[in-house]
């Protein structure tokens, strides 16, 4: 491949993985915006959802769409349950304490997944099956620019992610519950005085964030065609990086941060070394935090512990 084709190919690949980071990052950023907690278990919700979808689809034999929808509902319920059991009792205590609880939940879910599904990587689509959309194979590549191509699944990922992000922005901007979420992020007590059920709003935030994280998990499972218990760990860390990069608490920022991170990784993989791809994410994070702690679109800096 010639130079410009490599560049375009890496941009496409980076963009695809970037929108996945963005979808996960939204969950982190919304939760952090309201309860100022790094929800370490969020990456595990992403992983569990992929596994549930896999079980329903390749083992139970449900149609793909049904499996995906049920898995997403499961993701929401899981997120809400985690909040109810592990975070709500700790609201008002030092945030470090809630962080420990989050790490505990994360550990629990990782090991639960290992117990149920085993530690090894499993294909999402069984070897003999093939996924098609409108009779087009998901692995079909379309020529783009030069020798660069885009596969069907990449197109689907981009469309799904962008649509969901736009929907989410509209919900947050124009609906009553969206306003309540923003109000919670600005002043929890004042929001209660407005007659908002803060607990319900927070639960709703977890439900939406987890559902989006779950969608990301399924998309990635389809993209790489593999699911494993540790997949949530790195994805979670990177998505959180993306959230911070964009400015924590800011949904648009999370989206931008995710894409920026994905593309930088793609470029790093092409021009530096794929081994250092993961390190790039953290290097970017550190540089951004040191020189612009509020992130790219940040409107707030975090409070101290």
């Amino acid at each position, binding site marked *: 491949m010639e130079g410009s084709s490599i560049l375009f190919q890496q941009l496409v690949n980076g963009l695809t993985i970037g929108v996945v980071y963005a979808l996960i990052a939204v969950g982190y950023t919304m939760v*952090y915006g309201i309860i100022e907690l790094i929800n370490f278990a969020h990456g595990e919700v992403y992983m569990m959802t992929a596994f549930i979808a896999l079980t329903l689809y390749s083992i139970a034999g449900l149609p793909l769409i049904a499996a995906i929808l049920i898995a997403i509902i499961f993701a929401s319920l899981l997120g809400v349950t985690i909040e109810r059991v592990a975070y709500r009792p700790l609201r008002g205590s030092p945030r470090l304490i809630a962080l420990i609880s989050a790490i*505990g939940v994360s550990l629990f879910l990782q090991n639960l997944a290992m117990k149920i599904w085993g530690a090894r990587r499993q294909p999402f689509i069984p070897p003999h099956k093939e996924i098609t959309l409108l009779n087009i194979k998901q692995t079909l590549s379309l020529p783009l620019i030069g020798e660069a191509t885009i596969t069907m699944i990449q197109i689907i990922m981009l469309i799904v992610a962008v649509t969901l992000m736009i929907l989410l922005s509209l919900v947050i901007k124009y609906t009553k519950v969206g306003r309540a979420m923003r109000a919670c992020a600005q002043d929890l007590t004042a929001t209660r005085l407005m007659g908002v059920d803060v607990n319900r709003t927070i639960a709703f935030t977890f439900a939406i964030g987890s559902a989006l994280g779950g969608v990301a998990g399924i998309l990635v499972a389809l993209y790489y065609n593999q699911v494993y218990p540790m997949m949530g760990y790195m994805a979670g860390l990177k998505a959180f990086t993306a959230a911070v990069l964009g400015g924590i608490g800011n949904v648009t920022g999370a989206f931008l941060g995710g894409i920026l991170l994905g593309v930088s990784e793609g470029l790093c993989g092409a021009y530096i070394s794929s081994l*250092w791809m993961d390190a790039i994410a953290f290097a970017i994070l550190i540089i951004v935090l*040191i020189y612009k702690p509020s992130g790219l679109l940040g409107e707030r800096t975090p409070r101290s*512990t």
Partner: protein
Amino acid sequence: MPGFLIRRLDQLRKRPLFWGIWVACLIGITIFLTLVGMPIPYALVIFALAIVSILFSRAKYLPILIIILLAIMPWTSQDQYWLRVLITVGIYIMLALGLNVIIGFTGMLDLGYIAFFGIGAYTTALLTTHFHLSWWLCLLASIVVAAIFGVLRGLPTLRLSGDYLAIVTLGFGEIARMTFANWVGLTGGPMGIRDITPPSVFGFSFGFSAQWGYRLYYYLILVLLGLTVLTITNLRNSRLGRAWVAIREDETAAQTMGVNLSWNKTLAYAVGAAYGGAAGAFFASFNMFVSPNSFTFFESAIVLCMVVIGGIGSIPGVIIGASILAAFPEVLRFMSEYRYLIFGLIMVIMVIFKPRGILPER
């Protein structure tokens, strides 16, 4: 009833907290030993000794008693497995105490502390395998190198606090691990470095032997731990320690008292990292093998949990927290498949019901 016994019971009644802690300590150690695999008869003997010593001794001798107890422990069994467990617990205690300087004393959240452990371990591993330096020199080098990296990490992050600082430290931790894994020329990459020589004194090796088993390592970590506790307690009560606590309580107020934030924070990083480095040097020689897998974020999280669950800032609390959490997977061996699952659950339950830790700082 003999007179001294009455007096003792009277004392127990008058200072229940003080005596309670010591009794709990002694009983705790014995129960702990049985759990990690000491034969029950020995445990009962030690338990009885503990009770008798509490009844007959004076308060100031109690620490000595505990030291004696710890010293005779490795001779109660020929089984070397549980001695390995004890040594591992010791390493974790050291790490937790070091991290406690950063989190507990100075109040800076750190999610990448294990990097210093790794840096110390790799320093020792490289120096012994390439240059065949004496382990004691390596220990020194590990401490210094880790401290330097502590400063290097601390300087650019001085302005940050709270969660952002936590994330940056996490990033540094991950970059350190990836460096261990990817800089194959230096670190051997994912294969790690093997055949690290054990420490020795005048040609007498501390390594595993038929006669001594792992006992010499055990005593070595005991001595290192003793030094750690001693130095950290002194630091805590020094002018520097007070400056750290002032920063933790209120940065602005500390500044108005004349505490130099940058200097004291950087020192806290350096000191905390130094202990991590020392623990790493020990780990490298004890394990005789280092690889990137020992320095994952998971390990940082576990050490953090030891500090928080034990009681942030409290030295005895951190020791207890580290002992419990480090031994936990071993205690739960009989249900090995579920142990980390339960581990996670217990972390959640602990912070919900005992948010200030088992033995909070007074």
